[in-house]
């Protein structure tokens, strides 16, 4: 098992390096001169040239990459030239919001998707299965801004149950904080559960055809035990993959949902950085989010091994 972890860890190093290179290139190859952006269009060419020299922009690309990477490895991702905040500060401020949103959305998504998938698979082709598969299709084809608006209309405008927009930190008003998060998390969850449900349903249906399920029935086990113990675990590898991808995606914040519900998360930080051409923030945030994605997928790989002993023992 330790060997397995070490092998996987070594495998993600080149991925992280590639991620850093791509992030750097995206920010560096964007049209527009950073010095010009900072100084504005009134700047004299001499001023621009001086700032370029100061910032090292006159150096060759590979040299700039290596020096940037060197700083990154020391934990210095740069500083916004607009607010003076470091990238790490800006991200640290925003990440709790996106993290909480991601966790709540994923939790609700799994809470809906997993039980529905199990019931559907147990009675595949039945009325409930057909209805839920159809509903999942319908939900998949609804864009999140539409779902968000519908939820706001229903729960905030008509029923007055939940606030439409806003945010207070959990540490200040835990209950209110949760109330602010329900609608955005639900919006995301309604987009997540169809995927969760569909992959788990089809894997479960395949698993239920297996010999060992027939044997579990022949052993006289209770139907619930067959479904939850014998069938669910071997069927959940794809589910874990999909959940991992979802989490990785939500980790980077959700531009639309954070904007609609006025949540100060990573998504809003990114949008702001793009509007103000704050390339240092943009580059730093993209790098951190991409690293987060890689790490989540590393955890997914570890979960495979937890779920399937054959992977753990290097048989598969």
């Amino acid at each position: 098992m330790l060997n397995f972890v070490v092998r996987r860890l070594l495998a993600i190093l080149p991925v992280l390096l590639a991620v850093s290179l791509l992030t750097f290139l995206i920010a560096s190859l964007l049209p527009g001169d950073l010095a010009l952006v900072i100084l504005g269009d009134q700047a004299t060419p001499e001023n621009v040239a001086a700032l370029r020299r100061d910032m090292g922009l006159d150096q060759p690309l590979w040299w700039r990459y290596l020096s940037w990477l060197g700083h990154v490895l020391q934990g210095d991702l740069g500083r916004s030239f607009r607010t003076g905040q470091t990238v790490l500060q800006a991200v640290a401020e925003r990440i709790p919001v996106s993290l909480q949103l991601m966790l709540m959305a994923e939790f609700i998504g799994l809470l809906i998707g997993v039980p529905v998938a199990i019931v559907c698979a147990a009675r595949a082709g039945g009325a409930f299965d057909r209805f839920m598969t159809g509903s999942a299709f319908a939900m998949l084809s609804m864009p999140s801004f539409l779902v968000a608006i519908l939820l706001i209309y229903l729960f905030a405008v008509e029923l007055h149950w939940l606030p439409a927009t806003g945010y207070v930190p959990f540490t200040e008003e835990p209950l209110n904080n949760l109330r602010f998060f329900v609608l955005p998390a639900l919006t995301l969850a309604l987009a997540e559960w169809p995927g969760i449900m569909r992959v788990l349903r089809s894997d479960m249906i395949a698993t239920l055809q297996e010999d060992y399920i027939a044997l579990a029935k022949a052993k006289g086990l209770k139907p619930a035990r067959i479904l939850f113990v014998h069938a669910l675990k071997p069927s959940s590898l794809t589910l874990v993959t999909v959940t991992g991808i979802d989490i990785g995606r939500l980790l980077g914040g959700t531009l639309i949902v954070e904007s609609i519900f006025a949540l100060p998360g990573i998504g809003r930080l990114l949008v702001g950085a793009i509007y103000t051409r704050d390339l240092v923030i943009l580059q730093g945030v993209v790098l951190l989010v991409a690293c987060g994605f890689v790490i989540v997928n590393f955890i997914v790989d570890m979960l495979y091994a937890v779920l399937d002993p054959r992977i753990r023992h290097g048989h598969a």
Partner: protein
Amino acid sequence: MSNPLLTIEDVAVELPTPRGNLRAVDHVDLSLDAGRTLGIVGESGCGKTMLSRAVLQLLPKKATLTGRVMFEGQDLVRLSSESLRRLRGRDLAVVFQDPMTSLNPVLTIGTQLIETIQEHLELDAPAARKRSIELLAAVGIPAPEQRLAQYPHQCSGGMRQRIAIAIALSCEPKLLIADEPTTALDVTIQAQILDLLAREQRRRHMAMIIITHDLGVVAGRADEVAVMYAGRVVERAPTRALFKRMHMPYTEALLAAIPKLETAPHTPLPAISGRPPDPTRPLKGCSFAPRCRYAVSRCHEAKPGLTSAEMPGHLYACFHPIRMAEGIGA
């Protein structure tokens, strides 16, 4: 005489296929007394596995089953799923063909054994664990205590089949159905597994159905043999009587198809030519007639019923049982 433990009465199984209904089991009658062994023999697709699944009530969802399966006076076909569940694993156990696929790959061997025991017997966890260790030892697994924490992929095929047998035996079943228990195993392991089954059967006085395509497997082990072809029982006899004098040409052909050690190298096997009939299109006559070297025109026109031979308990479905056919030929 006391009632038999298991009676299969007029059981038929049909499976819907895109090409029409497939008659997998075609009105079969069989019975088995407590403690006895019945061998069901036939080539692939003859319906022997479907018949065993019909007994266990584990047929595919779309299959239709008619007839009665009486087990200790209860008709399993009409039993509620809850009563059936209590019966399965406890009185009625099964060992499947392929031990590589019949054990759950993500659960430990201990879990798979103990869950069966705790489902049916009122034992607490330590007692169930102790019983599991005894069972594994009884089926010849070395270091049984360590095995409990292992997963199926850490065991060899023969070992896994022993574990599957331990699971089947765990609640002292009255009937064990062994569906080709040795087909997926190495030849050297096959005899060991069959001997293990026979030994445990004697010790526990349970009835057993051995399903196989190999007449050699049932030869010394079954009390009675039923030969199936195209969903029907075509010959049924006490084992000794059958091997002494088989009447059905199909049985003879099955026996001839087993390679023998004494034949010279490169002797072609007298394989049965042709293929079994398409089970979605019922034949008018004897289903073996198209492949039978003794067949005459009558065999293609009418279906022979099961008739009694001179030996008591010996039934066959043939218009020209072998002895007579040879007589005509001579």
